[in-house]
């Protein structure tokens, strides 16, 4: 594996964890989140801060996931309190509060972010494989959730909260679980990212990043694991294919969001499903 391929594998792996983690919240459990990048950022900042203090890699990853998951649970609590439409706005707000906070903290590098992060101790190819293993683990985990009792319950909550509550589902507990798992995984992605990038900037975790993650989920097909995997690979490789695609990446993302919603709201997965008679 060349260094170039290794870096592609790393980026795809990280994006896949991000997309699948948002898919657990938005796809499985039906809770809209427009601030997923904030949890990615929380994980990255936590891991970077600890790594610079000399904490070992496994511990920084764990801390990144725990930190993001803990804050995610707090956001999940707001989702229990506010009405459905409010949630989109609240999660968007979390993204801004996170950025607004980080930018003003001198001990986190302010606008300049954190640089000089120590390496993983592995060569880039091995580290790319480590990221790939994590990504595969998240795929397997997602497929398992989908098939499990919890997955059916998430489905019920996403479909009709009131009905789920009527048949005795503890809706609040399941929403919190989805938020906790999804945001912890995003934190893990952030932790993995810092050893790859070695520098983090606040702007990496802005609203546009949240939308990029959402784009992968929506284009893959909200709730579909394999759709998400396919969309992540395609959208991550897109800027590599041509210079123009790199320059107009956001324009392409935006256009895709509009067209997919207009013609196949089920995304790629919806298209595939339509071909097969059920």
């Amino acid at each position, binding site marked *: 594996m060349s260094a170039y391929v290794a870096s592609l594998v790393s980026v795809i792996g990280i994006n896949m964890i991000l997309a699948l983690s948002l898919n657990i919240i938005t796809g499985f459990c039906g809770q*809209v989140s*427009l601030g997923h990048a904030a949890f990615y950022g929380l994980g990255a900042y936590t891991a970077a801060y600890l790594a610079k203090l000399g904490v070992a890699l496994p511990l920084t990853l764990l801390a990144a996931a725990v930190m993001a998951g803990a804050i995610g649970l707090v956001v999940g609590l*707001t989702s229990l*309190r*506010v*009405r*459905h*439409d*409010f949630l*989109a*706005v*609240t999660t*968007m*707000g*979390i993204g*801004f*509060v996170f*950025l*607004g*906070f980080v*930018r*003003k903290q001198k001990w986190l590098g302010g606008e300049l972010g954190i640089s000089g992060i120590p390496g993983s101790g592995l060569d880039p190819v091995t580290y790319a494989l480590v990221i790939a293993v994590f990504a595969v683990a998240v795929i397997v985990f997602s497929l398992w959730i989908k098939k499990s009792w919890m997955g059916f319950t998430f489905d019920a909550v996403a479909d009709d909260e009131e009905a789920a509550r009527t048949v005795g589902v503890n809706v609040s507990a399941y929403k919190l679980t989805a938020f906790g798992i999804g945001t912890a995984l995003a934190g893990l992605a952030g932790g993995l990212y810092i050893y790859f990038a070695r520098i983090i900037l606040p702007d990496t975790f802005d*609203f*546009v990043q949240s*939308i990029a993650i*959402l784009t992968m989920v*929506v284009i893959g097909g*909200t709730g579909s694991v394999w759709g998400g995997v396919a969309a992540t690979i395609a959208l991550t490789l897109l800027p590599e294919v041509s210079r123009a695609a790199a320059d*107009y990446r*956001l*324009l392409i*993302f*935006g*256009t*895709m*969001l*509009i067209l997919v*919603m*207009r013609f196949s*709201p089920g995304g790629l997965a919806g298209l595939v499903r339509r071909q097969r008679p059920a």
Partner: protein
Amino acid sequence: MLVVELAIKGLVYGCMYAMMAVGLTLVYGLLRILHIAHAGVFALGAYMAVTVANATGQLALGFLVAAVVSGLAGIAIYRLAYQPILRHSAFVPMVVSIGLFIVMQEGFRMIFGAYGIAFDNNPWYVANVSLAGISLTYVELAMVIVSVVLLVGFGLFSGLTRAGIGWRATVTDPQMATSFGVDPVRVRYVNFLFGSALAGIAGGLVGLLNNYVEPTMGGAVSYKALAIIVLGGLGSVRGTLIASLVLGVVESFGAIYLADIFDRDAIGFLFLIVVLMVRPQGLLGRG
């Protein structure tokens, strides 16, 4: 004196937020869509105002064009983007709206360049007037006057005219309004035309205020406008107006007293989250 001055500056921003947020509230009230692309319309207005004013030297013409083009853009957004997908759940139009916003922002970057444009002739954003010991720039004063005139005009229209009453009836109960002969589709067109024109004018005024128009200028303002309509209780115009002014003032004070912890754009949301924790239905919303 600082306190009074901060409060006044906050109210000036609040007026601008109100012009943005009223359009969003009306869209939400009618269609239950979180119209994030409203920010794109806001930036469009600013670009129209600055390019026309710089090309012709006529600031008033610039604002006229801004209002007309933004209003028409609003109608186009409704007809082309939202109308075909109204039967889907709220998630679908929201994602479309995000897509539209990103496309518009990138479009401005491609057409007008990534760096901002300034007005060629704009002495008013520095020139001060003094009113009862409070000094305001001419643009700030204009912001207050324009927003009050437009919003009062809107209030009179919706309260006193037949079309306005039909409009309010449609927001409250579309089916009932239709059976009384109100055309709901026409109401939606009027709604997007008016709300978007207001956003366009607000955009032009913000361009004048900072003497700077850039592709991403819609971002922060629109997120705040969304926060405001949630604060106001989603769909309540009165709540929205109050929330706009409150947010402007809170931000104004927060930007001074919380400067070391949060930046200005984060304060509004922090406030929103705190309020929602206490009152999930918003300031004036019904439970």
